[in-house]
């Protein structure tokens, strides 16, 4: 496709556009580059460069608090991504492929956790768990505590919505005739879902899962509210350190977290590429 900008090449406006773009990209990446460079600084003092070293990375892996928080993060991410992906995909299917009572309310309800401010959601869940635990204790003498369980339950609550949105977008692009064609060719509802719908929305489901994973691994605000003593996640632990100041150890942890994000981006692009299907080899009519 040819692109017409309505601007002659190398006009002043065009040059201005290009300059702006490269400035924005510099703005995007300069802090990251600085952070990465400083994470290899041997000096105790962040601001003073002495020599390149892996010292702080070794420290990270020796730091028990960081490792414990990382372990918690991974557990929470695994649980919340799995549950949210299943529930969110089911919700998307129900919304896109069925008509049922209360559908509009359901639709709205699913958008709420996305729209609602994180802080509000954090407050809601904190009060809910506190009140609920108090009530459980009084009712059946069981008093659970804040910890990995409450964090996971909270992460699922916001992740369902994000998975639903992503899977719905994919389902919306899927020609409903394909499912009819499967039924026409003797497939039962379940066979049509397993054989046609699921494989075709899989990139969307994977995309939703990746988004859920990222959100779970990134969340600070909500986790901060529903974490218990000794059960904080890596971002919450790092957040606590960051508020106190800048240290070379945080630099190293941050770069590791960034690297993890990059891997996720790469994986997500891989999925998107795979979903686009094979490139047509020949469009020639030979019959």
């Amino acid at each position, binding site marked *: 496709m040819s692109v017409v900008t309505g601007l002659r090449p190398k006009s002043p406006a065009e040059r201005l556009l290009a300059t702006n773009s490269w400035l924005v990209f510099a703005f995007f990446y300069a802090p990251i580059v600085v952070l990465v460079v400083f994470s290899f600084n041997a000096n105790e003092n962040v601001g003073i460069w002495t020599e390149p070293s892996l010292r702080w990375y070794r420290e990270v892996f020796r730091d028990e608090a960081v490792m414990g928080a990382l372990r918690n993060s991974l557990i929470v991410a695994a649980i919340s991504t799995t549950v949210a992906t299943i529930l969110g995909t089911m*919700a998307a299917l129900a919304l896109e492929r069925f008509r049922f009572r209360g559908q509009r309310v359901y639709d709205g309800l699913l958008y709420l956790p996305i729209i609602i*401010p994180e802080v509000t959601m954090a407050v809601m869940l904190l009060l809910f768990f506190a009140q609920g635990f108090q009530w459980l204790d009084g009712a059946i003498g069981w008093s659970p505590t804040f910890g990995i369980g409450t964090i996971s339950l909270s992460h699922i609550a916001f992740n369902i919505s994000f998975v639903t949105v992503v899977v719905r977008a994919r389902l919306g692009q899927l020609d409903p005739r394909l499912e009819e064609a499967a039924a026409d060719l003797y497939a039962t509802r379940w066979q049509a879902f397993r054989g046609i719908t699921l494989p075709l929305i899989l990139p969307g489901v994977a995309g939703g899962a990746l988004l859920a994973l990222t959100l779970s691994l990134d969340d600070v605000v909500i986790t901060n509210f529903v974490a218990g003593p000794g059960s904080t996640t890596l971002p919450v632990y790092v957040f606590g350190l960051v508020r106190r100041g800048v240290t070379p150890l945080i630099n190293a942890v941050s770069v590791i977290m960034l690297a993890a994000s990059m891997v996720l981006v790469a994986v997500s692009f891989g999925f998107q590429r795979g979903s686009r299907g094979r490139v047509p080899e020949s469009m020639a009519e030979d019959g």
Partner: protein
Amino acid sequence: MGPGGVDGRGAVSEPGGAAAARSELEDAARRAEARRGFLIALPAWFYLTLFFVIPLGIVAVYSFATRSSTGRTVLSDWNFDSYRRLWDSLVVEIALRTLLLALATTLICLMFAYPLAYYMATRRPALRNVLLILVMIPFWSNFLVRTYAWKVLLGSDGPVSQLSQALGGEPIRLLFTNTAVIIGLVYGFLPFMVLPLYTALERMDWSLVEAARDLYADGWTAFRKVTWPLSIPGVVAGSILVFIPTLGAYVTPAILGGAKTTLAGDYIVSQFLAARNQPFGSALSMGMMLIMLAATIVYFRWFRPSGRDL
């Protein structure tokens, strides 16, 4: 040609006896289908009711409760005191500051994102994809870490300050100021502005611009009369995606802001973790939520986004 394509003249046929029975069968088939849909929807419905609707209800209830002198919440003596406190000058000041900061962030993002998105959308497809990935990377990267990077950069012995001193200037003290918070917010949310703008511009039918040029519009007029109006949905979507989360921002001001730059998110958190005034914190949360819901509803009513992406 589906049901929508039918030109309806209203019902004419009167269902006879056998036909009525058949109609009930069709209804039964439809009901079975609806039941199936409902069952598939049920798990998420149940989950969100338990872990979202009920918690929301609890916050609403708490906002009418009383705080005892020891900081406990007393679930009796229901009153509007917490809501009345929302008009305290301190609260109003924080709300206005938050609003201003969110507006400023949104406008700055729009100023830089629009030309960038335009530039991206008018490149060759190959280059376009590379640029898109370059925007996606910060979009997907850990928000906390990206904010932290600015703390490193802007610190009193950070690179920005050192650079300024090396050039013979004063040490720059940006950290813990409103400027630092805005920089952090713009940095954090800029990709949210670029992506919908890019989507809108990339999808646009550029032959419309050619048509405008053909009809004697110069480049600037063609942009003003064709490109800009057609990209409005992207502008609105991007603005909402930046404005709403910045209103509730907590992490950025907590890291880059100072004591004098308390924002709404920060203030709410402090009601729970420091001041231990749950009713007031609940009322604040409700207020913030209502503002955002209103903004979102206005957005959906007025602009009715056609695509579901983002």
